[in-house]
């Protein structure tokens, strides 16, 4: 038997509460300081906020194929350290996760690591090439039980193929997660198209390239009666289209990354490729619109788009650099900074946008559940009063490409429980659920 008694945690930032976790289940929830449990390990959680284990609908674990950048083991360690208990692993591995075999491999690696639930995302098209549908049914019916399909990194730009994918996933209660980027409008694009790109002489990435695809896709989704998820929304115009679509009753959800809630294209002025990302950092007005969209529910959830790269992929000139930033270990602090401390949302909202809603979108069973008796013991305790100077060299991910290096961010993940076992204690990795000894 494993048992933990969490004492005096502020449940979703509210009243001090005791939680008893026994054998992977939250067995008792009671007023703070009222529970005794002989034999249980006691966690003093005074001043800590209890959240359901975080769920990332958008992670790049790089395995198989790019183990130099990240592995399932290192990526899920990073996830656990960041307060996560489940991640959706994007399909752009080598080979691409476009068959039952590859998604089962990733799923199996996740089970072996045991730091978080790993839910492989299946590719929509064979090889992410946008030409022919991958075997979505085989992936759905595999042991990985894939429900989210995405060509992330590439846009399913062919409107007929996108229509067919949306129709086909209805048979499996699936969702197509679209990387909205019109390819012709973004050939050679390097950064957001606007005042900064004009001055820097970097080929521009217009907002319309994202917005045009989202507009098309919400109409297609309405037409065929399917379910669409929009990855990493980055512009104010996209928010307007999503607001319109939701008002019409279109079954669409959307995510935003932490970095698009905080950083702007002004950072590109020094040409440091750590700020090179797809979609690109946009303007301050876009950041404001995205924050407001999370607050009013137009944007449903936070996806990290955690994209680790080896050092040499960023130690070069801007045009040659890879796109992407790490994010798993900084997501919660950035959300606290950008949304909670600005008064836009509460901790209960954080639980919704970083756990309950993404779990529902990706159909992850046992994740994103309320912190209530009888529910799975997946939870995170965060100290909102802590302050951390971000140092990527101490991160569990292999990637050192964090755009927050040197920044002071609020909040720190203290303890994480995954399936009732403590994966993180006092901010450090301990054991995974499969009891592989943490080396970190």
């Amino acid at each position: 038997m494993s048992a933990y008694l969490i004492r005096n945690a502020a449940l979703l930032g509210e009243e001090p509460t005791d939680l008893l976790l026994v054998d992977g289940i939250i067995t008792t929830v009671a007023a703070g300081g009222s529970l005794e449990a002989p034999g249980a390990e006691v966690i003093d959680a005074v001043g800590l906020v209890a959240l359901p284990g975080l769920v990332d609908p958008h992670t790049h674990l790089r395995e198989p194929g790019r183990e130099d950048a990240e592995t399932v083991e290192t990526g899920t360690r990073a996830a656990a350290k960041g307060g996560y208990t489940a991640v959706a692993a994007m399909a752009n591995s080598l080979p691409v996760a476009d068959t039952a075999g590859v998604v089962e491999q990733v799923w199996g690696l996740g089970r072996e690591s045991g730091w978080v639930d790993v839910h492989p995302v299946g590719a929509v098209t064979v090889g992410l090439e946008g030409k022919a549908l991958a075997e979505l049914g085989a992936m759905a019916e595999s042991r990985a039980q894939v429900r989210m399909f995405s060509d992330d990194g590439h846009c399913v730009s062919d409107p007929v193929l996108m229509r067919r994918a949306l129709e086909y996933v209805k048979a499996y209660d699936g969702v197509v997660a679209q990387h909205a980027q019109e390819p012709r409008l973004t050939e050679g694009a390097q950064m957001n198209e606007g005042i900064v790109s004009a001055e820097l002489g970097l080929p521009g990435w217009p907002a319309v390239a994202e917005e045009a695809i989202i507009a098309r896709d919400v109409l297609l989704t309405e037409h065929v009666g399917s379910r669409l998820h929009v990855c990493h929304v980055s512009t104010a115009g996209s928010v307007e289209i999503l607001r319109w679509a939701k008002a019409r009753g279109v079954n669409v959800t959307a995510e935003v990354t932490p970095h698009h809630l905080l950083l702007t294209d002004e950072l590109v002025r020094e040409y440091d490729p750590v700020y090179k990302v797809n979609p690109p950092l946009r303007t301050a007005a876009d950041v404001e619109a995205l924050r407001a969209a999370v607050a009013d529910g137009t944007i449903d959830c936070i996806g990290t788009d955690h994209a680790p790269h080896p050092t040499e992929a960023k130690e070069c000139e801007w045009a040659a650099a890879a796109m992407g930033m790490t994010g798993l270990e900084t997501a919660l602090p950035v959300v606290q900074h950008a949304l909670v401390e600005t008064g836009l949302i509460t901790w209960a909202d954080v639980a919704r946008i970083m756990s309950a809603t993404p779990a529902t979108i990706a159909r992850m069973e046992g994740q994103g559940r309320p912190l209530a008796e009888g529910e799975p013991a997946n939870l995170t305790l965060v100290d909102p009063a802590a302050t951390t100077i971000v140092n990527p060299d101490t991160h569990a991910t292999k990637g050192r490409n964090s755009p927050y290096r040197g920044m002071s961010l609020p909040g720190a993940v203290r303890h994480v429980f995954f399936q009732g076992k403590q994966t993180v204690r006092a901010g450090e990795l301990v054991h995974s659920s499969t009891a592989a000894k943490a080396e970190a």
Partner: protein
Amino acid sequence: MRHLLDTVHLSREDAIRILDVAETMSDVSGREVKKLPALRGRTVVNLFFEDSTRTRISFEAAAKRLSADVINFSAKGSSVSKGESLKDTAQTLQAIGADAVVIRHPASGAAQRLARTDWIDAAIVNAGDGTHAHPTQALLDALTLRRELAARAGVEPTGRGLDGARVVIVGDVLHSRVARSDVWLMHTLGARVTLVAPPTLLPVGIETWPCDVEYDLDNALATGPDAVMMLRVQAERMHGAFFPSVAEYSRRWGLNEARLGLLTPEAIIMHPGPMNRGLEISAAAADSPRSRVLAQVANGVAVRMAVLYLVLSGAPSTEGA
């Protein structure tokens, strides 16, 4: 001045200083023995990731006239094409003992990367990076125009800016590092710049630039500019739907004979070269007495001597970054 990376961050004081030193250097180029001992024992590397014979020989002549040792490093292709990375190349030059690196690179920001990282300690001179900046070209343009204005006013050019001058720059602004550097430098020096181009060849976001924008070349010429600079139209633009045809571009934005007649008697014609005769500039314009194309080339050597001298002589000043 530690580096010269662009003209956006170049102060008026520093710009005029470069131009004034260039005037002195220009005198050297007029002598029988075209050589000063100023940079004896210093090593200047011309690191060219793009073919540009004109710019390279101009920098080479400049460095040699100052008695520097010159190494030409032609590194065609970059880390993009799986060659050596920019970082490794920079560290190699550091190990060789380069005092100044003149870099031409197809990627915007490459010069800034060398200056901002710890890869190399040498002074960095940007000789053109992607579609971003080409500061020595802008400085030689300013030197050419300043001399013209001073001669017209019967004064010495030294110590002066370009105050009150009106400059029209015509062509592919979107892809032009020359236009970007000219706009900011000439604005800093007090000139009023008007950019003229088809709307497809102007960047989104140009509204914040310190210049005017005009689509109609005849309207721009009718305002009586002191100088008209024609930008080269690159061959690859002709296939990108930026304009319908070469003939239409030439009719609407080319400096043809009819348009020559619209210029005031003192107006000069400039072109950064190489010219597409018959496209953006007619033979009549290129060969007219108004043309300062060859003066620009000569002034280029003087300006580059001045820049190399200033970045290597360690004279304190604000950083022209």
